[in-house]
């Protein structure tokens, strides 16, 4: 397998002019300006192989979008090396963008006041897609994304979910080898989210398209990606398997037990009681010190159990803990 993306010590710094408040401040701004350096991306290293599906996570302002804009050739890095699909993106912007696809959830690439199909037809010319290829792809996406009933509606009249589906179709008609998705499910309801996830998964599996997904919605990542990269304040905090993230930082698993009757002392070795409401008791236990089955064994030997459930810590919690407690801050 070969690298689709390789970033070495990638940096993007912006200079912000600080505006002093008030009238006096405004006058002073005319004469001297205060500058502030924003290190939006500050020395990031990673490799993504062909066919991978990688989740890119981080809180607002962490540097996700800036990274994405460099990968798509929109921004010129301040320093560092970047090769995407064998090219330096910004240096050969036009060739580069011809072989990638991108969906920025908060924006549309379609013409606002024209029917969807007209925009798609124009894309056929812009990307020089052979007619039969275009027809075949369009037919497939029409079925998978259920575009038929709004293909002739102007984009401004579409619902958010419909617009997103149309944008996904637009980003894939030219068979890109690499797809960037920036918040593709933002603002969508559960059903619409699920439909889009299914489609994205299908594209990754069936077409082998390499996908880099940034999102706030952790369930997107849980359902789609094996590998995640976490960025905060311009630096990569974690790059690895989602499962490992759990194991390293997942903290405690939970065992929720519904007893047959109310017991006075429900204490058991290897776990802590964190909540007790009537017959329902919640235990926390650490991964590695005791397994769920051991714990259940110990409990069932002493108590009558009506029902029980093992809960994995969710990724959202894990990641929040990483941000808040800075678990991954390197020295």
């Amino acid at each position, binding site marked *: 397998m070969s690298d689709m993306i390789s970033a070495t010590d990638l940096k993007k710094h*912006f200079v912000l002019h600080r505006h002093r408040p008030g009238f006096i401040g405004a006058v002073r701004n005319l004469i001297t300006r205060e500058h502030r350096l924003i290190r939006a991306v500050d020395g990031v290293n990673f490799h993504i192989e062909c066919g991978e599906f990688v989740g890119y996570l981080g809180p607002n302002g962490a540097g996700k*979008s800036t990274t994405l*804009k460099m990968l*798509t*050739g*929109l*921004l*010129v890095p301040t320093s560092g090396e970047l090769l995407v699909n064998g090219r330096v993106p*910004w240096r050969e*912007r*036009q*060739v580069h*963008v*011809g072989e990638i696809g*991108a969906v*920025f959830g*908060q*924006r*549309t*690439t379609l*013409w606002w*006041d*024209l029917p969807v199909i*007209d*925009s798609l*037809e*124009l*894309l056929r*010319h*812009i*990307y020089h897609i052979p007619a039969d290829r275009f027809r075949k792809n369009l037919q497939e996406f029409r079925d998978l994304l259920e575009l038929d009933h709004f293909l002739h509606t102007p984009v401004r009249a579409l619902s958010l979910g419909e617009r997103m589906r149309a944008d996904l179709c637009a980003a894939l008609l030219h068979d890109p080898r690499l797809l960037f998705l*920036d*918040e593709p499910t933002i603002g969508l309801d559960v059903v619409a989210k699920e439909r889009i996830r299914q489609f994205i998964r299908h594209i990754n599996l069936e077409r082998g398209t390499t996908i880099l997904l940034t999102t706030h919605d952790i369930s997107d990542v849980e359902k789609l990606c094996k590998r995640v990269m976490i960025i905060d304040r311009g630096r990569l905090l974690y790059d690895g398997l989602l499962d490992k993230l759990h194991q390293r930082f997942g903290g405690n698993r939970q065992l929720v037990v519904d007893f047959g009757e109310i017991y006075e002392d429900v204490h058991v070795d290897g776990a802590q009681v964190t909540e007790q409401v009537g017959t329902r008791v919640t235990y926390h236990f650490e991964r590695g010190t005791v397994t769920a089955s051991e714990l259940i064994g110990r409990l069932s030997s002493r108590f009558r159990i009506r029902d029980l459930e093992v809960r994995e810590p969710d990724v959202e919690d894990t990641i929040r803990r990483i941000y808040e407690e800075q678990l991954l801050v390197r020295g």
Partner: protein
Amino acid sequence: MSLLWEVAKLAMQRQLTYRAATLAGLLTNFFFGLLRAAVLVALFGTSQEVAGLTIQGAITYTGLTQAVIAYLSFFGWFEVMDSVYSGEIASALLKPMSYFSFWLGQDLGRALVNFTLRGLTIMGLYALVFDLTVPTHFSQWLALLATLILSWLVSFSWRFLVNLSAFWTPNARGIGRFAFGLTWVLSGFLMPLRFFPEWFIKLCNLTPFPSMINTVVEIYLGVLESHEVIQALLVQGLWVVILVVAAHLILRAGTHRLVIQGG
């Protein structure tokens, strides 16, 4: 080339959806044209010819200048600027197409619709009210076609250049208004350049602005000798080349320092 045409076709389609705006613009342009004609007629008084222009030519001039307002976006054009500020520029830069051609195509579509629906219509309305000068020779019509295309290219490249200032300043509207205001005076839109003193005409001729309007007017009215027509077309062509090259160089510098607004 075919891609440019496809973009232009979509832009035309889009322009055609603004029916009410087109009608309103048409009526406004016509009304102000009549006013301007009345002022010029008063200016001529009893004289039959001023600065080589007959009264009939002067009236035709007001019609012509009103007719070009829409297709040259003469009252200002801020679309590129707006797309830089809104961050929409990102969608355009994500397409494998030159950013200049992307807008050139759109402006071509917009210009063609406005040339037909507003330009030709105004001349038609004028012809109902006034006795207009009309080119007589086939060669004059040919030169007119060439100068119309060239004037649009000069105008577009200039407008595009002005809009590129958005890459350097967070609010370029003021720059835009100044630049487009300058165009009004120096292009011969407010008054035929012939009416101005010699030194002022010379000054104007150092700029691309007469190539947008004055050249079109003079070729239509037939006040130029045939070698002057060729010369005027060559000057227009030269300005197209200069402005297009400048636009590309500045665009490249601009995109390298681009900051895409918004998430």
